[in-house]
């Protein structure tokens, strides 16, 4: 696949780089340069914003940082133009990473707040540049900077530079989309917290994507500085860059590397057609109108809708693969049967309070290798909080969580996932825009074994067959019913091949027959050697499945031991039913 794509890119590059040698009027070369310029800006923006959903309105700041780096180095330090370009990219990337290092630590700064923050950063940078010797007000002239003769004429030189950068950007965007990084970014787009708990290092991934995105925009800015040869704050940091870039990506389709390129070509041509005919004002209005219409009627973008239509057609032609015939999945953790009954997970003095409500108070708990431990208790007794602490969703206020000798209490959630621990959510939280198969393949890629993409796909198919979802592999989670979504949660947890599985109310909301199905499934999982902690209200399932139970009430352990004996204890009955009045 990659070889063929590389050949296609090389062929496109060679064919397009021959264009200037046919003696095209300079005017066309300049127009095509602008198309390439916007392709770079839109496709680079899309690497963070389209893939991960962190819409930045600050692309102009990084583009501008590149522009001023080139302008400053070329005019004030006499650095040759081509050498200023890597510097422009590095300066913009460093600026982006520094910003991201602060912003991405704050989980609330998503969506519109991230957009506004990046926009504000643009204006702050503009004010600083305007008032310091970097610019100082009058702007910088690059007309005296010598332009290397790459093509037969200056306009063809810009054309070739733009072409090279556009191809490089698209290649990078394509490789990212198909890599581990891309898979992680798409998961972040749908549900960042779940992505982290499944093993995606979300902070590092966002930072890497932001750095690359900003760096490419910086290089584009460096070339543009030379192209327009007069750099001013007002033009550089205008709202036009983020507006156009967002429009192009949304118009073309922001979930695919090629979408922004389609949007960039369409919008540039459109703006140009209007400017050429003295209708610049109408052109801007048309761009605004198109943005509105696309959001309302083509939420996936032109290219996105096209791909979607093609995929649907292909699916309807090829019959579903008979996953039912696949061999049963290998043991979740083969060869782990030794040490049965030894503690696998130990919680010591675990406490957590939410705004004064003590959800867990000094809880001691032990999970033994190979057992199914039931965690029961009334609503609000701290069962889910316990699961959230162990899986790293929250940090405990105090206490230790030892898992195979390692303390999880201070570990980031994605590292916990890699130690071989997996969980399900009470209300299923699948990645809405990923197929059922991709949902299950993701933890296999980011779990303890960190399988390569193709192998993760095989593994995912096996677990889908195991949970009876084989026929739904290409569906989106939204097409599943509750019962299937619950099983998707299970398949997703199993695909990381955990040694400890935390199940949060798998049975709630299921019918009697569906519960029977689920009980069979959990027995089968256990038969393969996994240890299971099991939060449940359905007492029938608790009695049938568990070896031991722990009862929580108001954040404290009030009883533990054999299920039947414990359920008869008066404290336990009181916790569930209330105390009789004397």
């Amino acid at each position, binding site marked *: 696949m990659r070889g063929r794509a590389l050949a296609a890119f090389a062929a496109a590059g060679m064919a397009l780089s021959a264009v200037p040698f046919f003696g095209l009027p300079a005017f066309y070369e300049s127009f095509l340069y602008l198309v390439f310029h916007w392709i770079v800006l839109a496709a680079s923006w899309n690497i963070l914003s389209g893939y991960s959903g962190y*819409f930045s309105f600050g692309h102009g700041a990084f583009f501008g940082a590149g522009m001023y780096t080139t302008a400053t180095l070329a005019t004030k330090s006499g650095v040759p133009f081509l050498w200023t370009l890597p510097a422009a990219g590095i300066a913009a990337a460093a600026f982006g990473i520094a910003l991201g290092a*602060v*912003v991405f630590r*704050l989980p*609330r*700064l998503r*969506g*519109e*707040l991230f*957009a*506004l*923050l990046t*926009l*504000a*950063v643009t*204006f*702050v940078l*503009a*004010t*600083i540049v*305007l*008032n310091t010797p970097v610019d100082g*007000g009058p702007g910088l002239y690059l007309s005296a900077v010598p332009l290397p003769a790459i093509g037969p004429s200056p306009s063809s030189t810009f054309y070739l530079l733009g072409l090279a950068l556009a191809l490089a950007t698209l290649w990078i965007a394509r490789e990212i989309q198909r890599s581990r990084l891309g898979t992680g970014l798409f998961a972040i787009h749908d549900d960042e917290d779940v992505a982290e708990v499944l093993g995606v290092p979300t902070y590092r991934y966002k930072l890497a994507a932001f750095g690359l995105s900003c760096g490419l925009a910086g290089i584009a800015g460096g070339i543009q500085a030379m192209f327009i040869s007069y750099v001013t704050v007002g033009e550089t940091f205008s*709202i036009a860059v983020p*507006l156009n870039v*967002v*429009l192009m990506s*949304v118009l073309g389709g922001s979930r695919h590397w090629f979408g922004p390129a389609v949007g960039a070509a369409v919008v540039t041509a459109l703006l140009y057609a209007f400017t050429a005919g003295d209708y610049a*004002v*109408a052109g*801007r*209005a048309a*761009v*605004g*109108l*198109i*943005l*509105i219409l696309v*959001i*309302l009627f083509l939420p996936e973008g032109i290219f996105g809708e096209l791909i979607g239509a093609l995929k649907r057609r292909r699916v309807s032609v090829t019959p579903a693969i008979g996953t039912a015939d696949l061999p049963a999945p290998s043991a979740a953790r083969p060869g782990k049967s030794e040490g049965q009954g030894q503690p696998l997970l130990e919680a010591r003095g675990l406490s957590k309070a939410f705004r004064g409500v003590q959800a867990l108070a000094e809880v001691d708990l032990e999970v033994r290798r190979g057992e199914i431990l039931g965690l029961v208790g009334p609503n609000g007794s701290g069962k889910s909080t316990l699961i959230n602490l162990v899986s790293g969703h929250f940090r405990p206020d105090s206490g230790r969580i030892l898992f195979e000798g390692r303390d999880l209490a201070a570990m980031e959630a994605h590292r916990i996932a890699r130690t071989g621990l997996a969980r399900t959510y009470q209300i299923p939280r699948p990645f809405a825009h990923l197929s059922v198969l991709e949902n299950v393949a993701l933890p296999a890629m980011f779990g303890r074994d960190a399988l390569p993409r193709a192998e993760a796909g095989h593994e995912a198919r096996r677990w889908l067959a195991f949970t009876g979802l084989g026929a739904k592999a290409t569906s989106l989670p939204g097409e599943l019913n509750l019962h299937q979504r619950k099983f998707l949660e299970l398949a997703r947890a199993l695909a990381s091949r955990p040694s400890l599985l935390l199940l949060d109310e798998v049975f709630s909301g299921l019918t009697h027959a569906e519960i029977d199905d689920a009980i069979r499934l959990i027995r089968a999982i256990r038969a393969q050697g996994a240890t299971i902690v099991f939060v449940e209200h359905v007492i029938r399932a608790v009695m049938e499945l568990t070896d031991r139970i722990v009862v929580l009430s108001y954040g404290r352990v009030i009883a533990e031991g054999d299920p039947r004996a414990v359920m008869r204890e008066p404290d336990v009955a009181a916790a569930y039913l209330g105390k009789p009045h004397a």
Partner: protein
Amino acid sequence: MALPSLTLLGQSLLSGIFIGALYGLLGLGLSLSWGMLRQINLAHFALAFLGAYLTYQLAGAGMDPLATLAVIVPCFFALGALMHWLLARFSVSAFNSLLVTFGLTAIIEALIQWIWTADFRRMESAYGEVKFRVGALYVALPELLTLAMALALSLAVWAWLRHTHTGKAMRAIAEDAPIAAAFGVNVRRLSLLLSGLSAAFAGVAGLALALSYTLAPGQIYAWLGVVFAAVMLGGLGNPLGPLVAGIVIGVSEALTMAFTTPAWAPLVSFSLLIVVLLARPGRI
């Protein structure tokens, strides 16, 4: 750095309060529709400028600038309600409302440029000439009017939300629209009312702009960052927030200008916005 004189300092403080009042007036509708309806209306600024140009046009035809409100307010109310109907019809998310109204801003900007050209326009009115002297300080009537309108509208909305039956229903919608609907609140009608009001406030802010400022289509974006800073600093959906935060920002800008050069002023509002976002994202 030379310390400015006391008179200059006083005059800066005063002008900071007045420009802060305009920030508050511009931010009021924005804060209400964002905080209560989860719609981020970027087009609010373009609407305010449209209002300013309409005031300019009507005043040029001989109308008293304050009387133009009788025309502008009902028209803008209808416009705002229509816009909300469109966003609700397509159930546009908070983020996409930002993009849709971004597009709308471009259209309104083009419309303004088409009708009134990109040249600067300045409304001539009897109000512009009037100045009062308080001790060593001067106060211009348009600025005083702006402050009065901002105070009146902010307090009126606050009282409406706090003390009236519909106001309480509106707050219930802001908390949880489906639950409010289940308790018999007419969510649709109240949302249309609030969007209409927000747009009408943009029209009033337009009057204030026309009274004190020279107009150009490109100026639409000049207010965006500062007013967003005031809205966020004041707390979304809090009717007094934009005015109070606006005055804080206005005064700090004015002091920055008095102590350094005017070109540094934008740094204050945007830095404040960034600090608010970084330090207290939970507030928004």
